[in-house]
């Protein structure tokens, strides 16, 4: 399956990073005094909270996702003159099922359109963790993978080649041991590169689908792109519609999805800079 080649974000991106204030506000995130918003995703037990605490220090507070009983932590950090807000998503194994946790995580990545999604991966269980990474990459291009627990991986005699991984996934992969504060600077650098558009991700899409599935996805994706040109994740939306995802069907009917594309009637023209062809 070939995917549309992603255009580079416009050069002005660094100057106008908050592109999506209204949707973020709906999701309970205020962006006053912040330049970028970063979502923190990952499987449970990957040291996600350790990464969160290491990056934000004491500048954090907790609350609930709007309308859900799922808790959420928020914090922030400053790096190279920009202020980043970090939103901790619930730990999930996947974004495909309908548990409240997965819904909250998925909604934030889809509708909140974070400038960067930092996915924390357990280096000792890469295969299982990649399932989530691949699903995140279907929704957003702007991903940095933090390969956490590298110390444990070494202890187990595992050799993880982060450069191969980065090449395969098409996004920055940073080895780290958040517990020992190793790799934090590199994570900040990669997040900043992706947020400011200095690094452009070319993410890998899920492959290996049976041919008839591939055909159905291609047909539906084409239709969606026709109706919503510039929608950054039309392929993913097609997959969700084929799966009969009521939530996405509703979002489509109410126009929430359309807003995400540059052609969406309610969105100012300057917001198309994030990802996808809209940026060209």
């Amino acid at each position, binding site marked *: 399956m070939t995917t549309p080649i992603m255009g580079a974000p416009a050069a002005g991106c660094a100057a106008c990073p908050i592109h999506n204030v209204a949707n973020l506000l709906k999701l309970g995130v205020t962006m006053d005094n912040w330049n970028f918003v970063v979502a923190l995703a990952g499987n449970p037990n990957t040291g996600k909270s350790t990464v969160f605490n290491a990056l934000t220090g004491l500048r954090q507070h907790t609350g609930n996702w709007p309308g859900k009983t799922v808790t959420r932590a928020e914090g922030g950090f400053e790096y190279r003159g920009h202020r980043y807000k970090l939103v901790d998503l619930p730990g999930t*194994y*996947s974004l*495909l*099922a*309908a*548990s*409240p946790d997965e819904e909250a995580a998925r909604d934030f990545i889809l509708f909140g359109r974070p400038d960067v999604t930092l996915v924390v991966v357990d280096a000792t269980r*890469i*295969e*299982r963790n*990649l*399932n989530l*990474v*691949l*699903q995140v990459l279907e929704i957003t291009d702007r991903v940095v993978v933090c390969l956490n627990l590298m110390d444990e991986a070494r202890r*187990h*005699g*595992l*050799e*993880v*080649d*982060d450069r*191969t*991984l980065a090449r*395969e*996934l098409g996004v920055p992969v940073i080895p780290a041991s958040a517990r020992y504060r190793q790799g934090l600077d590199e994570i900040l650098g990669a997040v900043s590169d992706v947020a400011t558009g200095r690094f452009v991700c070319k993410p*890998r899409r*899920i*492959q*290996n*689908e*049976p041919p*008839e*599935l591939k055909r*159905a996805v291609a*047909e*539906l994706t084409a*239709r*969606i792109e*026709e*109706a919503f040109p510039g929608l950054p994740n039309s392929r993913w939306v*097609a*997959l969700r*519609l*084929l*799966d*009969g995802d009521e939530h996405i*069907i509703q979002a*489509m*009917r109410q*126009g929430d999805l*359309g807003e995400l594309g540059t052609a969406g*009637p309610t969105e100012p023209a300057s917001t198309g800079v994030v990802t996808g062809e809209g940026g060209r």
Partner: protein
Amino acid sequence: MSTSRDAHVEEILTTARTLRSQLGTDFHEQLVEAVYATAARITDRAVIKPGEKARLTLDRTIDRLVTSRLWGFPIMFLLFAVMFWLTISGANVPSAMIAWLLIDTIYPLLREGAAAIGLPWWLWGLVIDGMYLGTAWVLSVMLPPMAIFFPMFTLLEDFGYLPRVAFNLDWLFKKAGAHGKQAMTTMMGFGCNAAGVIATRIIDSPRERMIAILTNNFALCNGRWPTQILIATLFIGSLVPAYFAGLASAMAVVGVASLGVVLTFVLAWALSRTVLRGQVSTFSLELPPYRPPRILQTLYTSVIDRTLLVLWRAVVWALPAGALIWLTANIHIGGPSIAEHLIALLNPVGFFVGLNGVILLAYILAIPANEIVIPTVLMLTVLATGATGVGEGAGVMFELDDTKALIELLRSGGWTLLTGINLMLFSLIHNPCSTTIYTIYKETGSAKWTAVASLMPVALGFAVTFLVAVVWRAVAG
């Protein structure tokens, strides 16, 4: 602009629906498999795992065996058979010890003490013969199997086997329109239905959780195994030559338990196509690596969280039940006791469904705990037949160790093979005990669904026993 977009949206949704119907129902699985395959390929390229090889191969070998199409189910049945056998046979000794302490030792002391300080007979009868003895029965019959079953269950969970069972059973539950995780709650139900109902919290979808709650009763709980085993030994075991007796009665009990599982699927199927209609939700099931269980911690948490909690609720209900049983047997209205009046009243109904008034009354009186059904049946039979020389007196629950004396007593109460078989069926298919009913109410917060959960099984039980009785009488003449 907006209307043309709306038209676009509807067109897209129609296309999606058409494509979906062409793709068939396993779309979600295909998609998940594609994700997994991609993840596996990338991992193969990027990770070298020399140290993990040995352990991983062992894990994979076990997995291939316990989740295989051919061996998965036999291994599962075998494991659970061993677990039940350990529970049933292992519980005998501590049960006998608790019974010796509470019933053979403390009970006579209490009676003597009561006589010595000159309490009126009705007071010590109500408190000691009724409330104390009823609770003592529940404790001695219920505590040991629960203290054995729950830790074993938790150890299997800890080891990592239970997720594999859910994996094996998932497609069956899915076919029935229920959630795959119901495999877990059903198995918990074999230990105790109240615990099984609490365990349904793991099911996210309210619809599928309700199905799991409503059908949990058909997992034959610990409190009902003694009834099954005793009646099977008395009536089924005696049908075959002595050396087959043990096997035949064991098969009969396993047969009843399996019937419960079949009923679970049938009812889940029926419910999900009528009152609880909706989509089956898919879930990702993580098959964790096999780990050596943490034995001490498991013992501690399962005793505190599961055994004691469930036991406490049972005791709370056994106290008033013991009092009630004693009162019905000792309050006389115009000669016969209330119990005898009720037995006479229930006898025609009992005959109708191949049971008798004694059994029905025992089930009404023993709603608080299934454990006291058999002691109550015996006590009421003695009361109704006027047999002498057995038991402790009117309204006093007891059990007989001597099989011959027991079957003589029951035969004199008019029991036949049909009564035995129908009692086994009714013991499987009747209302949940009051502990479970109370738990269902607490978990669902709905009086309506609690009523459905309580009354549906009784109605079904009467229907099944009635049918069996009709067919039996037609065939046997």
